[in-house]
């Protein structure tokens, strides 16, 4: 696990959205790395910019959004410097992405098989028939019991779990070097979610792929990832390996997040929760963006904090990192 060469390096990535009221700094200078064979999680609450970050890596930020700065290095090559045509050769082939709600992310009037085959035909220059053979075998890989029937179906004919598997298959079909999964289990019921989590663990073992998982659910991240970056209001506030973050969170936001999560494992008398709400990204609070909700905040927090390495591989963006866990 891990320890290999970096597959993806994101450096100081910034993606802004101009609006009527001002510029929304959805992603505001984030950096992280995905190593060979490693699974990295990007966790955060709605509106923190995690999905925009993923779309920025793919260079698929919807208009009027724009990547205004930073580097996205795929095996050392900056994707932001590629031409659109070159980038098209990367999407789906070298980096593939699966999306949250496969109902809306599949074309409703096209057979599942054709939608998966499309990418294969595009990138591997196969005939339609050969591509379909690959489609069937990929659908088998993601544990679909009757792949031929599923390939012949339209999205609305499948259940949520099946669609999510088909979406996985679509992402895997061209053997990408990196897979990005945006909220892979959010739209599903717990039982189906568990099936999918097990599948993803199996795939990881068998294919040894590098992947980036985006989720709001720390539980899902904890099951799948080795390392995790916690995002808040467009910035990464803490970044380390998963066990360390779960055991000894250092950023007050991470601490608060962990204290907010009710557990099935044991009954707790009281959850803490974080009062207040996510700041407006057009006029974010000065300095540390979490400071208005932070119980440790003081004058110093009005200045921008720097990312500091507390111990090897454990980074925190905070003036007053919490000691001794939550």
């Amino acid at each position, binding site marked *: 696990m891990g320890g290999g060469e970096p597959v993806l390096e994101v450096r100081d990535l910034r993606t802004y959205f101009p609006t009527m009221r001002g510029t929304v700094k959805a992603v505001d200078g984030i950096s992280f790395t995905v190593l060979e064979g490693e699974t990295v999680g990007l966790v955060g609450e709605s509106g923190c910019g995690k999905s925009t970050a993923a779309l920025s890596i793919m260079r698929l930020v919807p208009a009027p959004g724009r990547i205004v700065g930073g580097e996205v290095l795929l095996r050392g090559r900056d994707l932001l410097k590629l031409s659109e045509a070159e980038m098209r050769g990367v999407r789906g082939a070298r980096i593939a992405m699966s999306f949250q709600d496969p109902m809306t992310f599949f074309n409703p009037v096209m057979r599942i098989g054709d939608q998966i085959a499309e990418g294969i035909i595009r990138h591997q220059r196969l005939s339609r028939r050969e591509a379909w053979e690959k489609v069937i075998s990929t659908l088998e890989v993601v544990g679909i019991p009757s792949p031929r029937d599923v390939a012949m179906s339209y999205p609305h004919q499948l259940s949520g779990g099946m669609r999510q598997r088909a979406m996985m298959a679509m992402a895997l079909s061209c053997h990408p070097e990196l897979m990005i999964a945006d909220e892979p289990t959010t739209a599903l019921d717990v039982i189906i979610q568990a099936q999918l989590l097990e599948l993803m663990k199996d795939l990881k073992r068998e294919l040894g792929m590098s992947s980036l998982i985006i989720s709001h659910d720390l*539980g899902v991240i904890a099951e799948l990832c080795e390392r995790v970056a916690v995002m808040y209001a467009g910035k990464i506030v803490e970044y380390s390996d998963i066990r360390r973050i779960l055991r000894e969170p250092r950023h007050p936001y991470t601490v608060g997040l962990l204290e907010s999560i009710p557990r099935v494992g044991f009954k707790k008398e009281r959850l803490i929760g974080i009062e207040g709400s996510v700041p407006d990204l057009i006029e974010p609070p000065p300095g540390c963006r979490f400071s208005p909700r932070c119980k440790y905040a003081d004058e110093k927090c009005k200045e921008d904090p720097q990312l500091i390495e507390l111990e090897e591989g454990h980074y925190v963006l905070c003036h007053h990192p919490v000691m001794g866990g939550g």
Partner: protein
Amino acid sequence: MQPIVKVKGLKKYYPVEKSWIDKLLSRERRWVRAVDSIDLEIERGETFSLVGESGSGKTTTGLVLMQLVEPTEGEILFEGRDIFSLREEERRRLRRDMQMVFQNPYASLNPRMTVEEIVGEPLTIHLGLKGEERRGRVIELLDIVGLNPGKYYVDRYPHEFSGGQRQRIAIARAIALRPKFIVADEPVSSLDVSIQATILNLLQELKREFKLTYLLIAHNLAVVRYMSDKLAIMYLGKIMEKGVSEDVFQNPQHPYTKALISAFPDINPDVKRDRVLLRGEIPSPIAPPPGCRFHTRCPFRLEICERDEPMLVEVEDGHLVACHMVE
């Protein structure tokens, strides 16, 4: 003591649309059996949870309880009175005692009304309050649900609030008439985790302060464990297991309950759990499997399960399970 809410043999079937060919051949009308004969007793002052995946019938049960949907069969007693035998006028009066908090605070507040109008609506309808008096009460309620000072918020529109704040407004509306009983349908599932905790805590505080009884409808077992005194696990319109919450969590009997609990991803990095993985997906409620409804996915299926429907049996004090394995 008499339970505050008693549900007896509740059924709710929705008709499936028939095509003219079906009508011509006078094929039998088919039904979606959303809720198929369930019994519940909710004691005063407790939080009772209905747990299940989508399609289990938990939401429909809540809608019937709130008289938003007429039941196909069965009765619901609120403080001993059958609510569906009441006259229109009495039923409306009953709404003072029974209220509801909805799942999605982005959809449950009328976007063209101000907070004063939203929270004040029940006050106008039932108490005829208007003007300054109503405004004062609304401000008070906003303070209670943690939107303080309330007077800064009364004149705003829902779109000016975050999700958590909106849910607080919805809760203020629900408690405006000092009800005895509140149905909370997935009250936090569309909120961010850090906000979820604050809303759950608010619900707990209000329960203590106003001596409320809750019916909590949820799919998130962690939330359910945190909140509830008793619970019932539903699957395809039937109750599979019910009892005191801690009994069920510590000693789950039904394979489905076990699967649900083990399916839930947990943030504890040290525990390696053995999942009870279920095959396949939930069958269609139009043609539920014969015998035990769960048998098609049950890892411990016996022959009898395909034939006979198991009854709810008491395995320990107040802990009931519908499974042939435990009989």
